[in-house]
Structures are given as C-alpha cells and as structure tokens.
C-alpha cells in the first residue's frame, strides 16, 4: 500500500520478523515468528509487549474539559479524580457508538486514547463539539502496551512508583531516563500497562523492555485472541454506530449521575433501554466441539428461528476451546441458554456463557 502509515517501531517489528499486515491503514505486526498461541500465552503467563502506536492519543485542555466532554459520552468524567482513567464511548444521536475510548483526567485537562480506525473522525467530532477547548492529536507520541502478570515487576524495576498505581490509574514519570505517561490498564484481561512515550524514544524503550527475559513481543493476532477471551468489545465488530452501550453489555460504564441527568447523545434510547431492557444483547457463546465460530455466523434458537449473529469468534488459546461473542434477542441472554450456531451450513450447539471467558486479573 503506497501511503500506508507506520509506527515509530516499524523497523523493530521487521527486525524481529514480524509479519506485517494492513490494519486501519497502518502497517502492523499480526504476529512474530513465535506465533499467536505462544504470544498469547506470553501475556497470560509472563509479559507481552505490544505496539499500539496506531491508536490515537489526544489531549484536551481548557476550562471545565470534563464537563464539556460529558456532552459526548455517557460516563461520569467530572467525577474522575486526577490520575484516574475511565472506559467510555462516543455515542451518536441514535444511541449507537461512534467509537470507544479511554479518558484520563490529567489534573489540567484530559488525555484520551481512541481506536486507530476512528482517530480522524473522532478528532473532528471532538473539535466540533469542544470549540472552546484545545483538542490536539499527539502525533509525536508512541504507545506501548506491556501486559501480563510480570509486567508490574518489570516496570517497577525501572521506576518503583509504578507499583503504587492501581488498575485504571495513570501518571507521568521517568522510565529509563525517558519522560512517559504510564497507565495501569490494557486490552488483555491481565494486569498491565500502557506507556505513552515520545516517538523519538519509543524504540529505545521497547528494546529496553524486550531485553528483560520476562518480556517478548506480541502482535495484533494475540491482542485479538486475548481481548476476546477477556470479553472485551472490538469496535467495528462487537460494537458500531447501531449498537447501544446497553445492548453491548456496557451498562456498567454509564455513570450513575448520567443516568438521572442524561445530557449525552442518544440518551433517550440509552436511558429507555436501561429502564425497559434492550431488544438484543451481547453475550458470550461457547460452541461445542473444536470448530471456531467466526464473525458473521448466524445464531438460532432450538426451534431453528434466527435470533442473532456472531460478532467476534475464534479459538481461545487459554480456554483451549472455541469462544465467541454475539448479539441475541434479550430474553436469550441468560448463561446456560442453549442455542445453535450455523458453521459452514451445519448447526452446532452452543451455550450462552458468562463473560469474560478467562477471569480478569486486574490490580485493584
């Protein structure tokens, strides 16, 4: 692709033997020579290093930035103490989602991380709705994710204050002589960190981390299998402009105050669904046997009536079985419900399963 975007770690990915693919216009490693299963296991058992520099990092400065951005998201951002982060969604007027994102209160403003696929549109959306604020894409920042049970000790050996961070806490500190922002969160279900670092220093930091014997690189393939086992939504697949946060089982992200006050796009639908229940709901599904159910597969009830569709599915390396997520009619959402998934023209029995498939191990 002629004008494919590359991250500051591009040369390192190629040196490590990364298999580069196009992802939302970016050249990204889907895996390294070790393969997706080993990279996945690395994050579950030790620490895996991911390049997530394709995601959009945005700063929002100006008076009352938290109150201002609440006009665009259903989360309680005004109640976010400095140094704390929250997962939420940019909702649209019909109660669907423009993107999902993490918002961190920095003390002077907000630090926002959005998906690679949405960064241009999200930036335009933020700029249009926050005209009195300085909304800036931090194009000179890279983002590394160090995920897994060994991540904390690896980073704490470089900066002891990292150990003091709890899940969803974030602070600026010096790591290996580099000014970085470290946030204790991620997309794997494991304890872990995302490190925002200047692009010029990203490769140096990545090499320092990879020199630790507990750390190995992991690509987008493992990132996807890890987040699926953790029951975390992928924008454009499990959630999109038509799905509401209530349908997507993201009710927990809607602030208590926001439920009574509203004041975010699509509040009418979202608050109604909170009250009356949605028509469909995102659930976990475990198909019988070993054949993975993939995105797009139809879901049927036991009377063979179509009741929904798989939105993410694959083989869970930790679960050692196929795992999937999809929308079903709301009355079928209870764990244990027996359904059928159509795989290559054949019905395969599946059971609605509580999410996540692999328990979260966040440091609370």
């Amino acid at each position, binding site marked *: 692709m002629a004008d494919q975007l590359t991250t500051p770690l591009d040369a390192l990915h190629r040196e490590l033997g990364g298999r580069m693919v196009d992802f939302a216009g970016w050249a990204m490693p*889907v*895996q390294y020579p070790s*393969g*997706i*299963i080993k990279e*996945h296991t690395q994050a579950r058992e030790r620490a895996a290093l991911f390049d997530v520099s394709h995601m959009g990092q945005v700063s929002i400065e100006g008076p009352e930035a938290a109150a201002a951005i609440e006009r665009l998201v259903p989360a309680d951002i005004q109640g976010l103490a400095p140094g704390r982060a929250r997962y939420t969604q940019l909702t649209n007027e019909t109660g669907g989602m423009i993107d999902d994102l993490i918002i961190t209160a920095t003390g002077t403003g907000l630090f926002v991380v959005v998906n690679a696929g949405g960064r241009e549109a999200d930036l335009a959306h933020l700029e249009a709705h926050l005209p009195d604020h300085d909304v800036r894409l931090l194009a000179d920042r890279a983002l590394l994710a160090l995920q897994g049970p060994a991540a904390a000790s690896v980073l704490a050996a470089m900066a002891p204050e990292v150990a003091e961070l709890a899940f969803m806490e974030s602070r600026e500190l010096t790591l290996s002589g580099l000014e970085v922002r470290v946030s204790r969160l991620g997309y794997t279900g494991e304890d872990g960190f995302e490190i925002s670092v200047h692009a010029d220093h990203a490769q140096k930091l990545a090499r320092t981390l990879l020199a630790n014997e507990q750390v190995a690189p992991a690509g987008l*393939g493992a990132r*996807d*299998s890890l987040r699926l086992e953790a029951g975390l939504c992928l924008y454009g697949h499990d959630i999109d402009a038509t799905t509401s946060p209530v349908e997507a089982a993201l009710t927990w992200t809607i602030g208590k105050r926001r439920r009574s006050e509203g004041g975010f796009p699509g509040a009418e639908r979202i608050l109604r669904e909170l009250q009356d229940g949605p028509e469909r709901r995102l659930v976990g599904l475990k198909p019988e046997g*070993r*054949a*993975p159910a*993939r995105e797009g597969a139809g879901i049927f009830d036991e009377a063979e009536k179509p009741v929904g569709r798989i939105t993410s599915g*694959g*083989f869970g*390396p930790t679960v050692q079985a*196929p795992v999937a997520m999809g929308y079903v009619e709301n009355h079928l959402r209870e764990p244990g419900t027996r359904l059928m998934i159509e795989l*290559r023209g054949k019905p395969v029995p599946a059971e609605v399963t509580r999410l996540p498939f692999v328990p979260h191990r966040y440091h609370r």
Partner: protein
Amino acid sequence: MARYFTKDHEWLDVTGDIATVGITDHAQEQLGDVVFVELPEPGREVAKGGEAAVVESVKAASDVYAPVSGKITESNSALEDNPAMVNEDAEGGAWFFKLELGDKGELEGLMDADAYAAFLETIE
C-alpha cells in the same frame, strides 16, 4: 513414489492408484497456529478443485481443495485430536487424506518440488 505440488499449496504423494494429500510447509507457515481441522469421510467422491477439507488457524478458516478427482479412502484422524501437528510436520505425518485416483491424467498439470520452489519465489 512421486511427490507433486499444487498452486493451492498442497502436496500429494502418489503410489499406484492412491494419492496421499496434505498442505505444504509454506501453507502452514502462512496460516499460523492451526487449531482445527475438518476432514472428509472415507467413501466420499471429490472433484478436482472442489472443497475437500477445512483447516483453521487462530485467525481464519481456509478450505483445502482436492488437487485431483477421486474417492476418499482414509483421513488422518490424528489431526482432529492434535491440529498443531499441521504446523509441526506439514509435509510428513500431518497428511490430511488419501484418495483413489479417478483420472491419473490430472497429475500431469501438477508441479514437482523444483517447480513448486520456483513458484514460491514468484509469489513472495
């Protein structure tokens, strides 16, 4: 015994009227970690180029096509229990199925090892 290769990255060993079919090392490497294999039932008639088996990696599902026409005589059920064998021994123990050749003339369009190696050069 002669070994043939196809542009769909399959290999077949032919002994008498029986061909043993698998996917090439290049194919398994492109697929990545294999997690599921679906094999044809013995007795099934397959046509050259038709779907014969399915192989799935963590990321995606791929069809395995019959490189020649014939009747399935045996499938390698060890792969169903241990799909990772495909990554470990694609051109040996991880064969997919055996078939009785319907038309030996169909072998003529296939590649030998050298031709397949040259073919791989053109697509890398």
